[in-house]
């Protein structure tokens, strides 16, 4: 993480737009793990929207110095959220997206639930009706970005290296690379992981958790932090229900315990069953394009 502003400097970010050539690094060379900040443009580290000298309630902790009881040192009150930097950057992303009339979705799941397949089908079926671009997060490779590119959406691949989640600064850089049009959707496909991504606000408008019947029905109770964050849970691979031991009724009940406010949609990306519900959910949230 950057020692000055807290952003992650270790991620490798690559834009793969349909009309852009495949970058050279796929064949070898790296463009560099750029310290090239996104929409919030704080290149000179003169922090605009995230001047974090204030406590979470807006009151300035004021670096109040209180003599320590032992007299050995002095106590400085900070009362600062540990993830304040990420949260501030996320808020800057959110404002940037709202100002441009762009809907951003943070899509999270375990590895193998079908996030990329969902986005491939969504891109193909909504072509000409809704403009979608994708920020792909994976530890390594541009395999997913190439699939999304082949399906027809502009895409940025972020490789987090050892990192297990995307953070707001990576997304800021991704957004700048994509430059999405007003009235469009940006889906941020997070690193496949039901633990770490739950903690990092990216500036999205909604969090979607994708689950699949092959993972087993116990995930909402095993990973409650992730499911509690979800605005929408998509239960995928329902075409495989006859072949796996998965009790949908029990799943719905457990999901309600972990995430009482989350909406559940069942679908099969492979057969297309239930996809319309997902498209309708997206359509209801896309802002009208700005002039």
């Amino acid at each position, binding site marked *: 993480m950057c020692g000055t502003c807290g952003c992650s400097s270790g991620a490798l970010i690559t834009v793969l737009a349909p009309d852009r050539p495949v970058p050279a690094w796929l064949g070898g060379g790296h463009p560099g793990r750029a310290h090239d900040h996104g929409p919030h443009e704080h290149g000179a580290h003169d922090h605009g929207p995230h001047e974090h000298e204030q406590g979470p309630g807006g009151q300035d902790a004021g670096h109040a110095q209180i003599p320590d009881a032992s007299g050995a040192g002095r106590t400085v009150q*900070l009362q600062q959220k540990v993830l304040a930097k990420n949260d501030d950057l996320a808020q800057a992303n959110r404002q940037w997206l709202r100002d441009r009339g762009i809907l951003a979705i943070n899509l999270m799941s375990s590895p193998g639930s079908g996030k990329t397949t969902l986005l491939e089908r969504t891109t193909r079926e909504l072509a000409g009706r809704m403009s979608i671009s994708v920020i792909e997060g994976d530890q390594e490779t541009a395999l997913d970005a190439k699939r999304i590119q082949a399906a027809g959406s502009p895409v940025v691949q972020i490789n987090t290296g050892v990192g297990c989640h995307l953070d707001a600064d990576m997304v800021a850089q991704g957004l700048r690379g994509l430059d999405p049009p007003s009235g469009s959707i940006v889906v941020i496909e997070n690193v496949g992981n039901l633990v770490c991504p739950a903690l990092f606000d990216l500036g999205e408008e909604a969090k979607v958790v994708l689950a699949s019947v092959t993972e087993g029905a116990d995930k909402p109770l095993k990973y409650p932090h992730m499911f509690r964050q979800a605005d929408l849970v998509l239960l995928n691979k329902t075409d495989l229900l006859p072949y796996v031991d998965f009790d949908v009724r029990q799943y719905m009940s457990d999901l309600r315990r972990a995430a009482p406010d989350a909406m559940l949609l069942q679908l099969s990306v492979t057969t297309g069953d239930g996809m319309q519900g997902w498209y309708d959910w997206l359509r209801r949230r896309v802002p009208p394009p700005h002039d």
Partner: protein
Amino acid sequence: MHELAITEGLVDAVRERLPGRRVTCVRLEIGALSGVVADSVRFCFDLVTEGTSLEGATLEIAQPPAVCRCRICGRDFEPDGPIAMCPCGSAEVTVLAGQDLKITSVQVA
């Protein structure tokens, strides 16, 4: 292992607030529903502070309990695990406290 990124974030935040000051103790609050494991933060802290103005500092972690409010019966209660269920049997709850992840204070030399 998001605790590594979180520990880096907290060390950076302290250094930014107190540039150049030698810090001997960091006090954190890790809420019961914050999704962060205190022991993992302790494990990462020594690694991350090495060579910084926080090297050798002690780490004191308070873990305040979660407080939830039931939307059905209106009662406030402390859940006994990460899944918040009201004793009345309802899962319709709002988390009021316990999600914070905060640096409360530091001690400087």
